[in-house]
């Protein structure tokens, strides 16, 4: 063209939706779809393929998680109707391993190869604001990864016939009055509270005799062992069988679920391993929204009755949550906890516009003091960026989906937000639908994936830099309708779809 001064575009820097189209820089796009970035250019995005064979294909997918078993990776898949399936490979599907019709979403964490699952759904309050909390009268479930149905995590104490302790058998004991009870051990290693309803009481009158414990109740099919627990000598028994400290009796294991009697011998000085804490544990853990880990404990947030409470299990015992000592309380502002994440030795709890932290002080969780990180920025239910398949901390930041944008969090939130270039687009998302935004971070290819409320996707390429200026945005659209995403095999993007018929 005559008199035309050519302009060389050496970079394509992605979507720009901040202000009028006239202010869009010349190396950005006022609109784009289905592209991905290659160095300085763009190309059509890669195509989709089926993750499952036709014979086993699941449909109507609502949520997927990468379930890392001790034998490898797999998927947990929630489909419409409230059933969760375990997709082991393209041709092997277990389940449903759990069906709860009211479940439209679930939280998940894998610990020691076992999957912990909490069912929840979206509700709407009187102001028309959507929020999520655990299903009423529902519980956290544990799935062993073997195709058998998930069962309620934790478990009730022994129940039934009164336990009997008879002095005489055995070889030694301290003289005096003792109380005995039984603790179940489940196939996932959980130790129940002592039972049955009526403990055994007996008085030893010879130091050369032990006790025969009989009427040991047989537990449900998931019980693999029983343990005898006992008090030390009680001088003045007041009739309150629960008012004394119990210990595991050395040699007091019943390593099956069939034997109903056990001969034990012990001196009080041998009673070292305390069992009293089992009494206060949940026998059934109420359902919540977010499951994660912190310092070897399992963390559960947002139950139906306590939307600002997080429960923290005993370290190394994810099913053992003390109803008194295991409680963390976020600021009671009427908004539910939406997310939780460990980062740099701190447990962060998020609400929709608030972030607080808790640090382990080596005492029980209820003594941990919260500190406010930010009172204007929070996270959505699926809005904490997961890095690769490890859970979020193998690079030195978290990615947080907030109402104001995609935030970079390194202990504090940095401004401007990473989504600054597409601020108008971000602000067009209905706040009621932020629970539909799920974020995954492929830090190998340096791409952030986000599902959107309109069942499309956003990608953000940060190979130039993880900064608001250098990050490159693009929209992805499919004939399928995207409801959920996850990453497997390091950085393979899996997409779940639940198209509605028209």
């Amino acid at each position, binding site marked *: 063209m005559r008199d035309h001064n050519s302009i060389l575009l050496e970079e394509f820097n992605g979507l720009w939706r901040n202000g009028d189209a006239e202010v869009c820089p010349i190396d950005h796009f006022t609109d784009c779809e289905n592209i991905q970035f290659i160095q300085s250019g763009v190309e059509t995005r890669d195509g989709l393929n089926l993750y499952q064979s036709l014979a086993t294909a699941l449909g109507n997918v609502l949520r997927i998680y990468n379930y890392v078993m001790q034998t490898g990776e797999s998927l947990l898949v929630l489909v419409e109707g409230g059933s969760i399936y375990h997709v082991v490979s393209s041709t092997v599907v277990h389940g449903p391993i759990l069906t709860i019709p009211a479940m439209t979403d679930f939280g998940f964490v894998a610990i020691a190869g076992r999957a912990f699952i909490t069912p929840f759904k979206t509700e709407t309050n009187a102001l028309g604001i959507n929020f999520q909390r655990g299903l009423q009268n529902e519980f956290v479930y544990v799935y062993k990864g073997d195709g058998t149905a998930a069962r309620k995590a934790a478990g009730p104490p022994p129940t039934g016939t009164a336990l009997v302790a008879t002095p005489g058998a055995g070889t030694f004991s301290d003289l005096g009055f003792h109380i005995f009870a039984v603790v179940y051990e489940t196939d996932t290693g959980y130790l129940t509270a002592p039972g049955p309803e009526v403990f055994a009481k007996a008085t030893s009158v010879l130091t050369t005799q032990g006790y025969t414990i009989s009427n040991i109740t047989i537990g449900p099919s998931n019980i693999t062992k029983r343990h005898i627990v006992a008090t030390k000598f009680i001088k003045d028994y007041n009739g309150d069988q629960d008012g004394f400290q119990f210990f595991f009796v050395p040699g007091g294991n019943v390593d099956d679920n069939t034997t109903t009697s056990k001969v034990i011998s012990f001196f009080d000085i041998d009673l070292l391993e305390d069992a009293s804490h089992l009494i206060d544990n949940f026998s059934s853990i109420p359902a919540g929204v977010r499951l994660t880990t912190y310092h070897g404990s399992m963390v559960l947030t947002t139950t139906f009755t306590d939307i600002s409470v997080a429960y923290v299990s005993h370290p190394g015992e994810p099913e053992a949550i003390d109803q008194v000592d295991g409680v963390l309380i976020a600021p009671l502002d009427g908004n539910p906890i939406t997310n939780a994440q460990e980062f740099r030795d701190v447990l962060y709890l998020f609400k929709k516009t608030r972030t607080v932290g808790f640090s382990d002080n080596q005492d029980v969780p209820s003594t941990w003091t919260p500190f406010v990180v930010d009172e204007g920025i929070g996270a959505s239910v699926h809005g904490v960026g997961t890095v690769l398949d490890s859970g979020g901390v193998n690079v030195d930041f978290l990615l947080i989906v907030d109402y104001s944008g995609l935030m970079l969090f390194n202990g504090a939130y940095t401004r401007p937000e990473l989504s600054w270039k597409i601020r108008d687009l971000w602000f067009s998302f209905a706040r009621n639908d932020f629970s539909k935004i799920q974020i995954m971070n492929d830090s190998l290819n340096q791409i952030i994936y986000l599902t959107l409320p309109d069942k499309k996707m956003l990608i953000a390429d940060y190979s130039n830099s993880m900064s608001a200026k250098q990050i490159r945005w693009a929209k992805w659209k499919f004939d399928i309708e995207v409801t959920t995403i996850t990453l497997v095999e390091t950085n393979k993007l*899996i997409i779940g779809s639940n198209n509605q018929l028209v």
Partner: protein
Amino acid sequence: MAPPTNTTSATAIVIPSLDYTNIQTGIHDAGTTFTVWYRYTPVGADGIIGLRFYGDPIVYKPNTEVFIDNDTTSLGSIGSNLMSQIPTLTGRILFFKVIPNGGNPNPATLNVSILRAQNNLSPVGSIFIRAASILPSFITAGYAGLGAGYINDNTGIILKFSEQLPPGESGDYLPTTGEILFGDEFIEFDRLKLYSSSLVLKANIVYDWKQATPIIRTSRETKKFYIGSKGSAPTFPIEYVTVDSSGILSSPVVMVGFGITAIANSHDNLSVYVAGVGGSVGAAIKKWNKAGAAFGADFAAGVANKIVQDLLVMKNGEVVALYHESATDDIFVRVYSSAGAILNTFTAPVVPYTFVSPRLGYANDDSISFWLFLHQSDTFSRFINIKLSDVSILRNFTTPDFSYLDVDQGVSPTFRFVTSDSCPFVLSLAVNKYSGLYFVEIDKTDDTVIDGGVELDLKIPDPFIKTAFVGD
């Protein structure tokens, strides 16, 4: 031996979790065989549960009464040594009162077994049957319905149950989209309920069909449900309405006469086939002319002693009619041309059948075939998939139905869960189009999606960039 401890609801044996089995001895003591109690608090994962409180084949044959919330609100009773299946309501305690037969039977050993129903994948095309009816006690207790079963359409194996769908005797599905229309004949009455293929309620439509049940049949060509009202003499003649996939109800078209046993819209959408007008036995298949608002010449003459129980209109315009004579267990299917000529006849196996009417249903194969649903008197229902062109049998299997639970099945019953022997049935197309699990494959140049069990390669939708660059 001491008497049992669980002789009252307060001392009931607590069932901790399901699946649960228990063998209780010592029920008889000092000349008395005691009533014993169990209790269970359902959790959300329980869904449909199967109940069995079994004694022995000869001496101790207890009945069981099931209560909810307390020991006075009865849901109903299970007969001597029989089984039952019920949906559960999370957190609502169930009490089971196990009552011995008379005469203080001794010995008395109770075998308790309470199981969760199976919950397997149900592929597209699975046969789906809801319950026929519900006891008022369940409705009073707050149940929204009973379980509806999915049956493997190749083997007859029951795959799973949905929870609490309103029971009834009417319904059909849209073959192209999988939406299902049922009449709610017990819970809310006079409501047509339109569900998505995955049983999400899309519309709850008020329509007074005058009698106990409406008749519902899909029109494939118009993608609408035709709902026939049998009318109520002498005030309300027969009529039909339609419902589309959005739940829009049409105005009633009032016809002439009283009584309908089957209805279907014609392939050309000019008329409606109606059977059973003026008396069900030996009735002709009439043809209601929409434009003229009157019955024309009969489409097919009546067959002596036979009731036309069902009608289908196939994609090629042919009409399939099911004839039934209960007294003789004589059942056959006729395939008519759109002009009314008999093209083929399929005669059902001659075995004893129950009084429950057989039914027809559309198959999920674009009208190549159709289904026939028969209710044998041996506690099984039979499904036969019949090829339209020559009435040859494509698939043929049985599945245990509700009457299986009404018979003492002995020490080791083969089945614990059954589907209703009700009619009609529909096919479940519960997988939504293109829904599923996908992955992004590097360097793949199209999108492969799944549609009704078939892979499709689609163009990646319109990749583009648009810049604001206009130059100097």
